[in-house]
């Protein structure tokens, strides 16, 4: 394996140009924390961005931070936390789920675009990427977007880069929106609801004027094993439905009261605050009940996105059909499914159920040999797939960037 540790955008250009000339595809990595997601790449040459790790500019009053792509996410989170700011989309830490040591880089966070519970209110990584410098598969540095929140100058290529898994361009520097951290957070907990009732409770909460910033449901099966971060909450193993309210203290407290009245038909809610609440939402964000070192660590894990109100029906049926466990986030619009190991990873069942409601599913954790035979990313309708391929080729016509990561069967 040949690893090229680049130091600046010029280096990246040089490496990509050589890759084009030599028809040698590159695997693009930061810390490599998400290398286990996607298909095996048709290359043994690695472009390593971890040394491109500077904070170019942090301007708290402008609500922006400009970073090189290899900047460690953990360091950046500490940096902005010191100014009481955050990435409002709550980027997921995939390390516990995948069983990798490193937390990853900013570039990886954007390229994967895995947003946490606040996705429903604050948007995803794509909504917070304001601008980028990147090297395309033509070997040219280009920029898109800017350093201001409000900008419609030219096509918004940032949207494409976010969630592209490094297949369009090598991002070298990005400007991200940061937001003030809420002064207080309150989480209402309902216990013992089945999935359908929980889905209804979450729908009522998200349709209320109380500005709910997290709506998740942990069925009782998912609480069988001890999960770090849940602490006493797992208690007697009763299902847990959690609804988060954030803001200034008086407001969060007031809205928690109002929401608890609205949800009275679903039971009596209890309240957790601040640190305890934050720990619960980090547990949900990082899907700790399915952690690699936990009881279900050997199970395959799917990430299913669907219309929120369809969540419970989909999840319940899937769990019953496969003998697996599910967790709901985004008010039912995101289902994490841990399924007992199977050669096809239950792919046909998962995808049929997702398709039936207009959803889609990604196999986020499975052994490499399983991923050889199962599409990790959701297969798309032929027209969309063809357009997506044309879009990809418009950035990287020779397919030198992460060749094979998004679809099965690519060869070097």
């Amino acid at each position, binding site marked *: 394996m040949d690893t090229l*540790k680049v130091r600046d955008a010029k*280096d990246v250009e040089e490496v990509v140009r050589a890759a084009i000339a030599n028809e040698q595809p590159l695997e693009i990595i930061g810390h490599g924390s998400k290398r286990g997601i996607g298909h095996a790449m048709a290359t043994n040459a690695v472009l390593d961005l971890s040394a491109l790790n500077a904070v170019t500019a942090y301007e708290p*009053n*402008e609500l922006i931070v400009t970073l090189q792509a290899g900047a460690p996410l953990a360091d950046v989170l500490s940096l902005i936390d010191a100014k009481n700011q955050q990435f409002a989309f709550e980027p997921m830490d995939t390390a516990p789920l995948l069983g990798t040591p490193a937390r990853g880089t900013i570039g990886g966070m954007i390229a994967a675009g895995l947003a946490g519970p606040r996705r429903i209110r604050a948007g995803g990584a794509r909504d917070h990427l304001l601008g980028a410098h990147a090297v395309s598969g033509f*070997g040219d540095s280009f920029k*898109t977007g800017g350093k201001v*929140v409000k900008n419609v100058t030219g096509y918004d290529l940032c949207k*494409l880069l976010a969630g592209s898994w490094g297949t369009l361009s090598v991002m070298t520097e990005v400007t991200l929106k940061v937001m003030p951290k809420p002064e207080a957070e309150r989480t209402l907990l309902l216990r013992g609801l089945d999935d359908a009732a929980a889905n209804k409770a979450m729908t009522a909460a998200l349709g209320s004027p109380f500005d709910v910033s997290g709506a998740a449901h942990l069925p009782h099966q998912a609480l069988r094993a001890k999960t770090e971060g849940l602490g006493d909450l797992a208690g007697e193993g009763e299902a847990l439905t959690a609804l988060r309210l954030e803001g200034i203290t008086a407001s969060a407290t007031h809205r928690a009261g109002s929401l608890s009245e609205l949800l009275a038909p679903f039971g009596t809610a209890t309240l957790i605050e601040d640190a305890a609440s934050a720990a619960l939402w980090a547990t949900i964000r990082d899907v700790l009940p399915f952690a690699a070192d936990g009881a279900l660590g050997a199970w395959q894990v799917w990430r299913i996105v669907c219309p929120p109100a369809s969540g419970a029906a989909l999840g319940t049926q899937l769990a019953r059909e496969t003998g697996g466990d599910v967790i709901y986030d985004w008010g039912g619009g995101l289902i994490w499914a841990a399924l007992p190991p199977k050669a096809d990873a239950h792919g046909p069942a998962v995808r049929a159920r997702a398709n039936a409601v207009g959803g889609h599913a990604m196999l986020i954790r499975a052994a490499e040999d399983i991923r050889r035979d199962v599409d990790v990313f959701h297969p*798309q309708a032929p027209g*969309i797939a063809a357009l997506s391929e044309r879009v990809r080729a418009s950035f990287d016509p020779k397919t030198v960037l992460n060749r094979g990561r998004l679809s099965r069967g690519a060869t070097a």
Partner: protein
Amino acid sequence: MAIMMPASDQAVLARRAEIIAALRAIVPGEGVIDTPAEMRAYESDGLTAYRQPPMVVVLPDTTEQVSLVLKYCAGQNIKVVPRGSGTSLSGGALPLEDGVLLGLGKFKRIREIDFDNRVVVTEPGVTNLAISQAVAHAGFYYAPDPSSQIACSIGGNVAENSGGVHCLKYGMTTNNVLGCEIVLMSGEILRIGGKGCENPGYDLMGVITGSEGLLGVITEVTVRILQKPETARALMVGFAEVEAAGECVARIIGAGIIPGGMEMMDKPAIHAAEAFVHAGYPLDVEALLIIELDGPKIEVDELIARVETIARGCGSVTLQISNSEAERNLFWAGRKAAFPAVGRISPDYLCMDGTIPRGALPKALARIRELGEKYQLGCANVFHAGDGNLHPLILYDANKPGEIERAEAFGADILRACVEFGGVLTGEHGVGIEKRDLMPEMFTEIDLNQQQRLKCAFDAQGLLNPGKVFPTLHRCAELGRMHVHAGKLAFPDIPRF
């Protein structure tokens, strides 16, 4: 017309009668308009300084008709300009002499309201405001609120990625749209996204939003809707210096407060607005801030108090807080009427739309003043201060020889200054034809080529809305060509492991 549009295709113009007949076969009845008198309504959009009658206007009312029209035009090498309500301020819907103007005005139906999933599925010709009105009975609304919301269509909003006063807190169109049905220039009909929070694969919805009608024709949109905040209150704060107002904006954001809206007006804008609507604006201040807080009453009351403390700390000279909806609306009345108000004090005005980092506001205002002296033209300034989006209104008289040229040069210099201060050419109005030739101020040729390659992925013939956004058009084959760089694995000095 100062802007050069693509040369007309004489072969197409020569076949006009045949083309109209073919289009009538696809869209029967009154859906094809070809008389000069009837086409006049379509010869311009909100950028009225530019006018051009199209070759023919087509108003389809089904997706299949849109598809057939585009397929026919692609086959015959005929240019197409899509149009919603025609409120674009950047000339995005300016017709072409040899082009079909494809109006989506008949797509006026809301197809589905789904409160459980908090989405509305709508046809593109429905107005922005009509979406909010359709869900108001259940306490919901659609958040982006461009000032033309009574008239502008949601399809146009998607094309332009429209903003509005409240996008500081609630985002622009791109942050509030989940999916669409789109017809490519080839006639192919695609469905992207749906009711889920995010879409699989590349974020095509994200790049279509704000693509100014160059990538495809939207025939359906799925937007997310929100519950209306329980209440809203506003502060109206006057400052003796623009710098103090800028500092106040910075401190509010710095304190972690994201207001629902935060608008600034300078003295000429205040005077024009006050003379028009008599909102009680103070006339002896240099800058006026309108700051709106929304949410539960308990939160709004507390934040109003916090913002009041900040404003006084920044040396405010006048400060009023709304105590009723009537009062809050009065505060806004002048700001919302700022454009027509300026229209009363000047025969003509140009509305600019740059964005700068918030902190550069005093610097930008000083530059605008200098430029005004240089060009000998007045300028009234209104800003979305919270997100640094400037709307300088340049005053001129089109009947005075040379004034429009001076006004345009003044405007271009303001936008260059926005880029120089770290900002961008357009915050919400779009590039269109208005800012097209300024694109190189912000982007290199490489940057622009990458954007045009994307266009090729959607429309390889370059027939959809040509002449907009890009100053120079390249053939797709030329853009796709790979420069052969040194064919050796060089980089001897890059560390290897």
